[in-house]
Structure formats: structure tokens, C-alpha cells
């Protein structure tokens, strides 16, 4: 019986080490993880330990990405880290649903998104830069 308790406790300890690691200060991260998570450098130490752990797991895949994927990964990391767990879960579900769409329709959607992005970029380039003069603070009426 004691052996059973000890074995279960050991399994529990191993499991818990997989699920939540102790919080890691930025400077103690391995160089490869620091490179992957570089956009989060400033906010890293204030992130919850569970989120740190999840992000470190993502960082372990970073070396396997190609150059374009690495660029996208790093450019989206801050946005991803700022989402609530519910928003991240909703995004995963949307992504999974989108993965079920037939390839030709997926390509159509991608094309539409690219055209939309290009239109937005050209519109912002054409629009004149409006400089707003600072509004002077109202002066209190002197009695």
C-alpha cells in the first residue's frame, strides 16, 4: 500500500512538473528561447507562470520554422500573449474550423484577405496626413 502511495505521489510530482514550471526570469531562459520570445522581453517577468510555460513550449518549435514563419511568429507573439485564455481558445476553434474548409475555398479567403489588406495599405498611403494642433486648455475665468 505504501508503495502504491509512493508511486502515485511520484507520478503526481512528474505530472505537475510538466504542467506548471516555476516562473522563469527572462535572463535564466536558454538563449534559443530568448531568441524566439524576444518580442516579449519587456513584459516577460510580469507574465503568469502558466503563460510563461505555454509560451516556452511554443518557443521550442521556433528553430524548426522557416524564415517567413519565424518573422510571422515573432510579429504576432505580443498580440497572442495579450489575449485572454478565452480569446486564445476561441481563436483555436476558429482556426480548426477554417482548417476543415475545402482547400480551394481557403485559398479564396486568403486571396480576399490579401486584397483587403492591400486596399487598406493603399488607402492609408493616399490619405493626407492630418496634423492636429494641440488644443489649448481652457483658462479658468478670472473673477
Amino acid at each position: 500500500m505504501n508503495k502504491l502511495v509512493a508511486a502515485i505521489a511520484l507520478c503526481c510530482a512528474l505530472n505537475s512538473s510538466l504542467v506548471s514550471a516555476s516562473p522563469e526570469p527572462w535572463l535564466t531562459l536558454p538563449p534559443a528561447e530568448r531568441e524566439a520570445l524576444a518580442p516579449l522581453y519587456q513584459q516577460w517577468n510580469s507574465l503568469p507562470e502558466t503563460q510563461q510555460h505555454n509560451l516556452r513550449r511554443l518557443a521550442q518549435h521556433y528553430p524548426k520554422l522557416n524564415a517567413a514563419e519565424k518573422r510571422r511568429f515573432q510579429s504576432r507573439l505580443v498580440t497572442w500573449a495579450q489575449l485572454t485564455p478565452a480569446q486564445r481558445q476561441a481563436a483555436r476553434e476558429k482556426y480548426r474550423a477554417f482548417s476543415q474548409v475545402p482547400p480551394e475555398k481557403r485559398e479564396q479567403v486568403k486571396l480576399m484577405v490579401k486584397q483587403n489588406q492591400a486596399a487598406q495599405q493603399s488607402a492609408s498611403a493616399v490619405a493626407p496626413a492630418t496634423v492636429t494642433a494641440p488644443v489649448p486648455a481652457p483658462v479658468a475665468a478670472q473673477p
Partner: protein
Amino acid sequence: MKKYSQHINHQHIARLLTHSTEQLDGNVVSALQQARAVALQRQRVHAPAFSLSAIGHHAHMPHTPSQWVATAILLAAIAVGAIGYWQNAQVPVDIEILTDDLPIEVFVDQHE
């Protein structure tokens, strides 16, 4: 001996035993029945052992504090393992969202 052992198989042994028990007199049979009843009675007196093999077969409840502790630790380990598994299962999707050629805004609803 070798020749004899070739003839002995489990059916042969069973036949021999059946034949032998038919030869027993009434006293021996009743003594054996009594001994069997006593052995079964003793087995019932003891608290059933709590074991993993009992799950699904005989759903024994834990009896002693150490069994309760073991059960609690086991359930906690299963829960923690399930969470770890679930978190690991999210990693490939997260990587795909972060590296897909569609922008992340397509999948993220900022107003939730």
C-alpha cells in the same frame, strides 16, 4: 515416465479428479464442504483489499485513511495529467495560428 507424461494432459487430469471425487465417501465430502464454507466465511470477514484491478470489476470504496490519501493523490495526478495533455495538444494549433499566412486578426476576436 516420458511415455506416461505424454498421455497426461489437462483433460486427462480433470477426468482423473472427477473420477477420484466420485470415489470419496460421504464423510470426506461433507468435511471438504465444511472446510470450503469456513474458508469463504473467513474471506468475507476481511476488508476487501483496495486495488486498481478492482476498478470496474468491484467498485470498492477506500476504507482506511491511507487508501483515501492514495485515492486523492491518484485523482489529483489524473487531473494534472489531463491538464498537461490538453495544454500540449494546443501547441501545434498555436504554432499554426502564429505562423499561418493569414493574419492573426482573422482568427482573433478582440471584442470578446
